[in-house]
């Protein structure tokens, strides 16, 4: 069965992108695929939110972008996690997990 795609909670997209880059450099399309596939197609990230988010990460210096060849030999822009990006991911991730635990707790007990 396929799930209905969900909108992301505000503010979580940046963290998820950083997390998907932790294993290595990816281009924009691969990031979108990674988010979709790893969430069993629940998280559908539109390009109109993905690219502004990537620009935001560039502006903050958490990722850097370089042109390289894609798997099918096209020119693609690869994003790589920087050291400040790693630090940011760690702290955001901790915050996010506490937040989700809190939400679950509220949903189950209230």
């Amino acid at each position, binding site marked *: 069965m396929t799930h209905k795609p969900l909108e992301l909670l505000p503010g979580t997209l940046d963290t998820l992108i950083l997390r998907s880059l932790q294993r290595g450099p990816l281009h*924009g*399309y691969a990031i*979108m695929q990674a988010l979709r596939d790893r969430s069993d197609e629940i998280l559908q990230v*539109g*390009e109109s939110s993905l*690219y*502004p988010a990537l*620009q935001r990460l560039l502006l903050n*210096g958490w990722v850097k972008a370089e042109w390289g060849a894609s798997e099918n030999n*096209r020119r693609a822009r690869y994003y790589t996690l920087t050291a400040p990006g790693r630090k940011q991911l760690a702290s955001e991730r901790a915050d996010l997990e506490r937040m989700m635990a809190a939400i679950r707790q509220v949903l189950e007990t209230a």
Partner: protein
Amino acid sequence: MSKLLRRIQYLFRRNRMEADLAEEMEFHRAMLAREFPDGAGAARAWGNTTLAREDSRAVWLGPWLEGFWRDLSYGVRGLARERGFTAVALSALAIAIGLNTALFTVFNAIALRPWPVKDPGRVVNVLRRIGSGSRAGGLDGFGVAEWRYLTEHTKAFTGLLLTRNGERVEVDRRPLSLTWVTGNYFSVLGVEMARGRGFLPEEDRAQAPEAVAVLNYGTWRNDFGGDPSIVGKTVRLDEVPFTIVGVAPETFTGTSPLRVDFWAPLSARRVLRPHDAEVLPWLTSLDHCCSSMAGRLAPGFTREQGASEVELLMGQLHGKSEHEGGGAVITSGTALLESPDSQEHQVVPALAAMFAAMTLVLLLACANVGNLLLARAAARRTEIAVRLSLGGSRGRLIRQLLVESFTLALAAAALGLALAWSAPAAIAARLEPENAFGLTPDWRVCAYTASLAILACLAFGLAPAIQATHGRIAGALKREAPLRFSRLPLRSVLLAAQVAISVMLLAGAGLMVRGLQHAQHQDPGFRIDQVTVASLELPAAAYSGQRAKIFTSQLQNALAETGGLPASGLASDVPMENSRTFTDIRRTGEPPGRERIVQMHDVTGGYFEVLRIPLVAGRNFTPGDAGRQVVLLNETAARSFFGADSPVGKTIESAGKTWEVAGVAKDAHTTDPGAIAPTVYWPMTGRFNLPHVLIADAGAASRERIAAIVRGLEPKGRVVFAPLSDNLRSQLEPARYAAMLAGALGLLALALASIGMSGVFAYMVRQRTREIGLRMALGAHPAQVVRMILASHLRALAWGLAVGLAGASAASRLLRSMMNGVSPFDPLAYAGVFALLIAAAAAASAIPARRAARVDPLTALRWE
């Protein structure tokens, strides 16, 4: 911080970054198309491309900048749509900003831009204040001997230098100019030569002068064809061989606003003028003055310390009892103050008057555009009201309107800068072909223009923006024009301001034109018609100093002995030539230090006969007076030194000698058409230079005979004849230019004011169309309607007129020196202003009034 840096980096590499984003998104789309071959899926997964791009840009620009960007493009679109408004507002502002920038460019070149030397901040002008205490006079320079003493003893300056410009030399029959400088000139200033070297200290010794010179870069390129092997070559200046030791860099054109072709050491003047007995004393004696001094302050010394050291040393040199010590003044090293006696007094008031006028033009343009913006905002009431009612914040709207004004101001500034780029050089070339200012705008000029644009934008944009967003929304939505205006509507204030400024500018122009007319017709106090001036051209090297004196007395005798010649007289300078020579004298019996400055002319008795200047007391000069110690005074000098007593037979003191007053000549404008200064006439001896010969009623035959007399005395001599009236014409040339300029400014002001007025009237008609229609439907005559429209602004016009007249009469006091004795309340000038202004107002109201009169009652009433 690094985030800000990245934002700035983005601004510079925007095109590149946006191209990257576009390509990346293109790649993304291609991948999607592969994964979802059916188009629908791809479109769904894709989303909104434009939004993605705009949002990405917003990330970089930040929320504030992004908003600004949006306002800017909105403003540009709005301005592009309303072409008529934009053209009028833009040209008014561009002209006003351009004129201001052009003027500032000139000011910058002569007063602000430091000399192009090493570490210019430490290089200063050193000046001496003449007199002391309450009788402190103008500023002056230093003598060569004084400079030598100061140089030997100073601790506050690492070097002091002296310059004296204005020596004319002939090179291959071309007149060029030479400036004398001390041997350390280039080394103190730290000027690196383009070729060769500067002077060596041993090249400037009074006892062993060396004929060496440094060439100006432009002269080297233009007059010497940029000869690469010029250094070491010999150039004949007035037939005297000088060795070129160097070429100055292109950027360095000297330390005075005057053009310099050659620099040579002071002592080389002995080589160039071997017969001039005054040169050696000039180089060595303490009695000789004055050249311009500048110096480089030593590290750790301030200007005040430098000035007090110079005062102290001068006191030591001249002995404490001497009144000579005086004060010392130190100013920045710019061209304006370099030769204070000649420059400052003429340039500064003229510049101040011009600045005042230009500021008025700018204010006028601002008031004008402000009024147009108000009218435009009124036409956009509905749009503004809709936006306010939909929840747009008022601050946001004001910001948007201001950004629009800012766009306008910025575009105008760009146009104005272009105007300023070309205009001043053209004007300066006409006014003063001798100067060597760098008139290209530099960063100071650009900064000035930018701040003008911002100030102008606030001046014309802020008030309309605030007023436009003010008021009730509901009424505006219903296009309900308010029938009652607030007590002091902004529009009326702006209109009054426009009228006031135009009146001031026009009145100033009118007064200057009247002053010019007056000067052309005033009685100069002497005969101008049918007087011929004969100027002698003799080899300058041979005819200076003692030789000139001998020649003068020979000429005087020859003219007197030759029978049948018309009356003639000799003079050191030609009347109305604007050449001034000053000296200071005191009445015998007054203590030393009470000297006052007078103008001096050396003349023979024939001078007064040819010019028909009567002697009111005593006797005229006789040929025997040449060696005697007698003088004549003009009436002003007689009054100033002797009061009501007759000065004849009394004595004055000058240059350490006593002179007897032989007579008093009637006052005459022998120097310039302005006020008559106290003047002393000395018997002609040829001590300064070769004399001019003034001849009454010279026909061709007597001219030829005079030329023959000169050739008889000096075979190489030539004589140039010119009517004296030519001098009056060239004397009035600056006034003519000033009046022309003022007239042009006045007309510009008038044009701006008419545009402004017609804008206001047109707006009023538009705003009151319904009311007009109603009145006409009820039987009002079109003329009555027109009168009604005009009447509502009559008060503003009257106020503007009154304020303008008050301002004009105050300003005319400043202009007095240029008015040649015309009263600041000259009725003709003011009548002209009134006539012009009324004509302009009538023209400005004609079109809107016609439109009002043609309003069709039915259409008007149905108008919403």
